[in-house]
């Protein structure tokens, strides 16, 4: 590609150039017809790609001028359904609520959709291979009764797409891809608009919003709650009246006018509660009554229940190192393989599990450094192949390093040759969010390498079996006994002695959170091998732990 064309396209698409270079390119564009033609060809195609890969928006001003939308503002449901159908063919839902609230709700909903919904083409034009727009996953159900027009009943572990979800009774706890935990108490109509916005037409919701997801918004007919990093509850009646209480942190509650603009707002701090009445336009302080709101879900990680033969199955394959996390003494987790080094706990890594049952390593939320590091080194035989196997349970959708191998020869630099991690939501990722990532990098470094991503997402509070391995120049990733994907590694026969880190990308507090990617959750049965594993062995190991495939029931 002609460097001049590349620079011009880069500047045209939002990049910067210095003044002299701009002048040079403009001059070439004026005098060189072939260059001009090539540039136009590229920009036209780029424009088409952008338009065709994004949703055609609702043009409200145009619709108002042409009088198209007046009849559809009679009910919120009609408008909501039309917009949702435009986006992804959501089935029709029965009309609810008095009409005097409908226009208000419609406007709120529409504004939210226009502002916040990802811009996508209608589903009918999306290629068949495109996956639905998932934004959350169900992590816990308590006597939940769904009421879906298509008869679907999401279970624990089910991903939920953008759209309307009705809960007739019981409670459902969801984790959105941005880490927000949302508990919904039925009867509730909840419309997932995007990963950062939900519309609650009626029902009780309670949101726990982690750092980084601030600004998460729950909309209701005529009102809205914007989070400032907190935990809050919102009860929405069918009439549109709502009550909000802050359990921790701070929120801004607002009443909205018929156009969906903020009419009045109020900041609420911890233990404050208000009545929101869109009818009278009033926000009124009330005595906080926590028991009137949806209860906080007790998310207790389940134990990893293994078949008793599991450890022997692993030992039979003669791993180079095998850490079971059954005992801890002086901050050391012993290696099951004789004469091989233990893992040393840095920070408050602990053990969990009742006496006599399987234990696991716990990485609890903390602000201090927390990871496991192996004393000594392991030299993975990269030319012939090696494997890393473990069980992991994450408490969050969050980019977190599980296993890192860094070159000893490059220390104190922490140059990776291997990384196994789970991903969270990132707007610049090319793959779907919340996948498992295996990175092989040679020579050791801080950038580059070859990636393999899982086809399926992981689910918080669920144990997953992971194997990342290299077979000569082939990289393979397995999740829960199933082959996910493979890639060809950069050709090289070399290897080096490595430091093995668990639960963190890099050590040292000087790095920011994205550079250390601390893991929060539980890990167990870590084994590293000087050879790759067979698909049958991987499948077998997973099956020996299938008793654990349930979501938290307070078993540990």
């Amino acid at each position: 590609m002609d460097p001049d064309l590349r620079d011009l396209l880069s500047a045209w698409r939002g990049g910067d150039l210095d003044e002299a270079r701009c002048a040079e390119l403009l001059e070439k564009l004026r005098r060189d017809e072939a260059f001009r033609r090539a540039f136009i060809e590229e920009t036209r195609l780029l424009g088409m790609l952008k338009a065709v890969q994004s949703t055609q928006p609702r043009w409200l001003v145009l619709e108002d001028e042409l009088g198209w939308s007046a009849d559809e503002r009679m009910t919120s449901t009609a408008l909501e359904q039309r917009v949702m159908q435009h986006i992804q063919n959501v089935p029709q839902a029965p009309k609810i609520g008095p009409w005097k609230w409908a226009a208000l709700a419609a406007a709120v909903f529409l504004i939210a959709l226009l502002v916040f919904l990802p811009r996508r083409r209608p589903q009918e034009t999306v290629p068949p291979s495109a996956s639905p727009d998932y934004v959350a996953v169900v992590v816990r159900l308590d006597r939940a009764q769904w009421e879906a027009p298509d008869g679907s009943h999401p279970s624990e572990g089910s991903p939920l797409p953008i759209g309307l979800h009705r809960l007739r009774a019981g409670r459902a706890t969801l984790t959105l891809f941005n880490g927000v935990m949302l508990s919904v108490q039925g009867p509730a109509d909840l419309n997932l608009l995007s990963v950062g916005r939900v519309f609650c037409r009626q029902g009780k919701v309670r949101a726990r919003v982690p750092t980084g997801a601030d600004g998460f918004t729950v909309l209701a007919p005529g009102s809205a709650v914007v989070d400032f990093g907190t935990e809050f509850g919102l009860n929405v009646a069918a009439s549109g009246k709502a009550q909000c209480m802050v359990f921790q942190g701070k929120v801004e509650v607002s009443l909205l006018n018929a156009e969906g603009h903020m009419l009045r707002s109020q900041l609420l701090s911890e233990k404050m509660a208000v009545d929101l009445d869109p009818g009278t336009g009033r926000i009124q302080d009330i005595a906080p009554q926590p028991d009137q709101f949806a209860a906080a879900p007790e998310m207790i990680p389940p134990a990893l229940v293994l078949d008793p033969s599991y450890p022997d199955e692993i030992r039979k394959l003669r791993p180079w190192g095998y850490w079971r996390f059954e005992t801890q003494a002086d901050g050391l987790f012993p290696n099951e393989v004789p004469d091989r080094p233990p893992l040393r706990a840095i920070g408050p890594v602990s053990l969990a599990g009742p006496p006599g049952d399987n234990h696991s390593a716990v990485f609890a939320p903390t602000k201090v450094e927390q990871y496991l590091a192996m004393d000594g080194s392991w030299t993975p035989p990269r030319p012939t192949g090696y494997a890393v196997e473990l069980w992991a349970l994450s408490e969050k959708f969050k980019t977190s390093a599980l296993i890192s191998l860094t070159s000893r020869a490059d220390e104190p630099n922490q140059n990776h040759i291997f990384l196994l991690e789970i991903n969270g939501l990132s707007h610049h990722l090319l793959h779907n969010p919340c996948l498992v990532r295996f990175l092989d990098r040679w020579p050791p470094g801080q950038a580059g390498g070859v990636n393999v991503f899982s086809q399926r997402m992981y689910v918080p509070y669920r144990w997953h079996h992971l194997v990342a391995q290299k077979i000569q120049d082939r990289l393979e990733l397995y999740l829960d006994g199933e082959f996910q994907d493979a890639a060809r590694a950069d050709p090289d026969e070399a290897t080096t002695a490595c430091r093995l880190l668990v639960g963190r990308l890099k050590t040292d507090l000087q790095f920011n959170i994205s550079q250390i990617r601390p893991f929060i959750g539980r890990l167990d049965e870590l084994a590293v091998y000087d050879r790759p594993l067979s698909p049958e062995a991987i499948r077998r190991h997973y099956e020996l732990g299938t008793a654990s495939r349930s979501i938290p029931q307070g078993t540990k």
Partner: protein
Amino acid sequence: MLEPSEIASIVDEVAQGNRDAFRQIVRAYSLPLRSYLASQIHNLDDVDDLAQEVFLAAFRNLPTFRRGDDFGAWLRGIARNKLYAHWRRTSRHKRAMEAFREEVAHVVEADLEHAAAADRSETIEALLRCIDKLPEKLRRVVRGGLDGEKPALLAEILATSVGAIYNLHYRANQLLRACLQKELD
């Protein structure tokens, strides 16, 4: 695209008070118009805001449209005016790069208009099928886009350089053009 007789009929209907008839125009020209605008400004929100302004202006000035003329060209003429107004607004408040982009737009205006005259909704929609046929890496780059900081992020994720991302997109565009040719033959 609509035939001149269809456009004439819509103009008549709108003149008689049937504003809903304009919907056909929005449907038929939305994608080519948004593509045209998106080929010149990178922010998608700006693209869609301007597209709405263009349709509004077209609706309000429909009586001035000369029957038999190319309606798409007329629409793009309005779009150009909106684009220049947009650049004037942003270059006053923003940076020299916006002024540079406006200057580039002036230089390529005639050639771009000539090329865009051939753009049809069906052509643009066929791109979706062609994207699907690209090799995985190229598909990722195409879906990632080339605006603003995206090339740098793509480069990081794909473990390559920003220049390589542009080269990959360039290669992808060549394949897409060849695919479009086949699709539309």
